[in-house]
């Protein structure tokens, strides 16, 4: 607010015009700001605008309860943002709520089922050796293989750590390779080899599978081969084929690179996402290799990674690649040229900054020892949302009208003060809500509307306390102006104390609770604060000014402070008398 704050209470006491000017300037400034910012209506929540709201709860893995912390939750929010907005949703918002919830709000007009599928599932990241891969274009039998030239990006690196070069999946100019059937056979061979040699990558070739297990493996391999042949990754339904694969099983999966879908046969997970300590996107300025993603592994992860890369390096493309699989989809499949030891690695390729960061994010996300459970999904149709908004507005208008009528009947002339005060309160509330939309992402939802309606009562109560005090003073036989000045300090204290209690309730609710309760608490707190502002800067000064008017000071019949109607005592001259009169014990029941 541009308006200066100085002299607030003093001006409320003695310079009523100044306070009035202050609050009017504030209103004009805020309203101007509102129109200038282009957000002249409050942002509406899902329940009023229509759309889907999903609440997810983080569940830590056993023994890692401390992993539900802000950093991890923020990473998760980033990832989910990517996943949801990857659906082409422009205004989906993902935010944490409380300590362990994430709220995903998706406006209407989006396929909410798909969105739910995206955010509601557990994200799992694995590094799996690639056994076979090809572009999946439905009928394509002679499609370019993505992994034809594994060393496309093996630019020399001066970094001490060994280096995994990104796979050439980005190089579109791959040579045409064998047909699906031959590939399938290759995959099947590879699988068999894999079953015997690297079923447990860390155990490496030292494993000696029993006959039965090898037989089972080949049966599984045959099944996988059939699956791979049939797989068409361009079909939406099959894109998440790898989703439910267990870590220790080989699987088929899809992955999209540069807009082209590829299908993969992947070996058992060699390294877990949780083995990645951290990942980051960095710009390699020394070698001009462009954006790279660096990974740090945990101790265990580092040795696992060394083993698998050592093995992969011996193979030829595409079997020297490992697929980074997030949620059953291959997000990247870099190839490896040598065993990578030392617990850290780099992935390079022709990444843009965005791609690198996205990959780094995904790698970090996989490292989160969190899973997310869908706690609630609310889908509100646009029609229902509009109706709820409508009902809320009508209820608010009726409530306000009823209060105004009550004030008119009971306070008559004083409503000239009460009603504008309510209006000023309403305008300020509206404008601030509108400004808070873009400001802090405040969205007006149904409970918030309720909070605002309930606040009408709280605001009106402040006037009632003040007016009743004034009336008490008038009943004492005082004239209006001294009554106002005497009533104010006492009313002020009562208003402050009770508003403080109300604000305390709102603040505690806002901090502690989750979900709808929060929106409600926010409005309640906001309106309570505004109540204090309005009473101090508007109601009281206006009362002071109007007390000078003849209509009020003479106690006109309709002024609401007619001493006769209030039953004020006639003026008393003797000092002793009022004590006597006032102290007279009265009990009309006995009379």
């Amino acid at each position, binding site marked *: 607010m541009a308006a200066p704050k100085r002299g607030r209470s003093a001006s409320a006491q003695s310079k009523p015009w100044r306070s009035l000017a202050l609050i009017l300037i504030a209103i004009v400034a805020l309203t101007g700001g509102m129109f200038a910012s282009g957000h002249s209506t409050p942002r509406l929540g899902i329940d009023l605008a229509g759309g889907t709201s999903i609440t997810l709860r983080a569940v830590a893995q056993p023994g890692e309860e401390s992993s539900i912390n802000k950093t991890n939750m923020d990473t998760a929010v980033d990832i989910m943002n990517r996943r949801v907005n990857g659906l082409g949703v422009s205004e989906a918002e993902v935010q944490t709520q*409380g300590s362990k919830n994430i709220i995903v709000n998706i406006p209407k007009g989006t396929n909410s*089922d798909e969105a739910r599928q995206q955010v509601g599932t557990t994200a799992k990241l694995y590094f799996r050796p690639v056994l076979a891969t090809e572009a999946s274009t439905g009928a394509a039998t002679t499609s370019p293989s993505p992994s034809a030239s594994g060393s496309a990006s093996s630019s020399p690196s001066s970094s001490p750590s060994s280096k995994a070069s990104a796979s050439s999946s980005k190089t579109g100019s791959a040579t045409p390779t064998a047909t699906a059937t031959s590939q399938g056979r290759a995959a099947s061979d590879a699988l068999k080899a894999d079953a015997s040699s690297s079923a447990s990558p860390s155990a490496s070739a030292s494993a000696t599978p029993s006959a039965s297990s090898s037989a089972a493996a080949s049966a599984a391999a045959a099944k996988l081969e059939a699956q791979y042949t049939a797989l068409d990754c361009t079909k939406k339904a099959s894109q998440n084929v790898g989703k439910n694969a267990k870590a220790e099983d080989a699987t088929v999966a899809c992955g999209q690179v540069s807009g082209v879908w590829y299908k993969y046969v992947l070996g058992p997970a060699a390294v877990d996402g949780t083995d990645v300590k951290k990942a980051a996107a960095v710009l390699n300025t020394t070698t001009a290799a462009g954006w790279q993603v660096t990974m740090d592994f945990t101790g265990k992860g580092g040795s696992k990674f060394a083993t698998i890369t050592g093995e992969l390096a011996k193979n030829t493309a595409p079997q020297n690649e490992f697929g980074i699989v997030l949620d059953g989809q291959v997000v990247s499949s870099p190839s490896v040229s040598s065993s990578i030891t030392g617990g850290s690695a780099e992935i390079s390729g022709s990444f843009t900054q965005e791609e690198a960061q996205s990959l780094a994010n995904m790698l970090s996300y996989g490292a989160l020892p969190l899973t997310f*459970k869908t706690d*609630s999904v609310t*889908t509100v*149709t646009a*029609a*229902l949302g509009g109706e*709820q908004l409508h009902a*809320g507005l*009508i*209820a*608010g208008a*009726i409530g306000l009208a*009823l*209060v105004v009528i*009550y*004030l008119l009947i009971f306070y008559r002339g004083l409503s000239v003060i009460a009603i504008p005060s309510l209006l000023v309160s309403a305008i300020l509330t509206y404008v601030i809500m509108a400004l808070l939309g873009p400001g802090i992402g405040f969205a007006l939802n149904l409970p918030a*509307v309720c909070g605002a*309606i*309930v606040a*009408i*009562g709280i605001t*009106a109560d402040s006037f*009632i306390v003040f007016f009743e005090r004034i*009336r*008490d003073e008038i*009943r*004492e*036989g*005082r*004239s209006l*102006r001294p009554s106002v000045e005497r009533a104010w300090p006492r009313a002020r204290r*009562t208003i402050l104390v*009770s508003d403080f*209690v*109300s604000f305390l309730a709102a603040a*505690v609710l806002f901090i*502690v609770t*989750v*979900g709808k*309760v929060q929106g*409600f*608490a926010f409005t*309640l707190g906001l309106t309570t604060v505004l109540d204090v502002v309005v009473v101090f800067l508007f109601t009281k000064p206006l009362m002071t000014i109007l007390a000078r008017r003849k209509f009020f000071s003479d106690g006109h019949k309709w002024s609401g402070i*007619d001493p006769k*109607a*209030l*039953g*004020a*005592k*006639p003026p008393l001259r003797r000092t002793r008398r009022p*004590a*006597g*009169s006032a*102290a*007279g*014990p*009265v009990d009309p029941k006995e*009379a």
Partner: protein
Amino acid sequence: MSKLGNLGARLHRGEVGYDFVGNRKIWYGISILITITAILGLTVRGLNMGIEFQGGAAFTTPKGMSASVSQAEKYAEDASGHDAVVQKLGDGSLRIQIAGIDTDKSDSIKKQLSKDLNVDSESIAADLVGPSWGDQVANKAWEGLAIFMVLVVIYLAIAFEWRMALAALVALIHDITITIGIYALVGFEVTPGTVIGLLTILGYSLYDTVVVFDSLKEQTKDITKQTRWTYSDIANRSINGTLVRSINTTVVALLPVAALLFIGGGFLGAGVLNDISLSLFVGLAAGAYSSIFIATPLVADLKEAEPQIKALKKRVLAKRAQAAAQGEPAESPAANVSDDDYDDEPEDAAAVVGPRTQPASRNRGRGRPSGKRR
């Protein structure tokens, strides 16, 4: 002036007045009775917890459905394999609640329902809740409630005194118990909206109590320096003095809530608006009652256990007895005698309704208005 204004004047002049403190035993009794009923209702009948607390799904169809409730119920049960509760809302839309299904299954149920009911599945609003979400909301709410109570007791103990804080707390618990009890007895559905409403009652109930306490504190500032009134007398006067305000505040608070309830019920049948306003309505009424009939008398009781105040009471009663023995009124008659009949104070010691100004200040003759008199 309106009747209430006259009531205010008469209350102010002490012409009318109810002896809230003197009759406190009756009100304590009534409150204890209500509370026991509420607790019994809660244990015997239990709360009708909404879908949000059990886990399940609630679907709302577009308005103007042709299907009947029983038809929809059958569809829903066939689709889900669980019991379904179907309500027809005010605008002709159907609200179908199915408890116990998990969020994964609800999609297929929604599709099936949209086929059966012959509406576009996109136009069905759905609320799917895992069983732990409602619990979490409720747990957080209890947590908030506990923290709020502690803070408010500390605050009131500082701003007023611990006895008032304690009395306010008792009144608060009283309100919440009554509200929950009514929910149990009537069988209203408990939803997160209800919890929101319940939490707001906290603020409101205390708000009301605080205003009475504020007046009480002001009036009892110099209580030990006089011998005319006991603490209870003044407490009673505080209640009566703020009675008009309490009535006004409660009416003004209830009006918008009633509008909300009416609109929520009339237009939407069920929903957040309705849930919040219903619990608010019940709680506000209980809150107004408790701040007048419970909180302040309780303060008086607690206060009169204090040695100082006890001694004061003794002195006051002794003085009254003496005045009675002398057969003369304790005080000179009021200025405008024509208004009222006066009883001698001693005859009616328990039911004294005091004048509105502070006893201590009155004798100092302060506050004589300098302005124009009428």
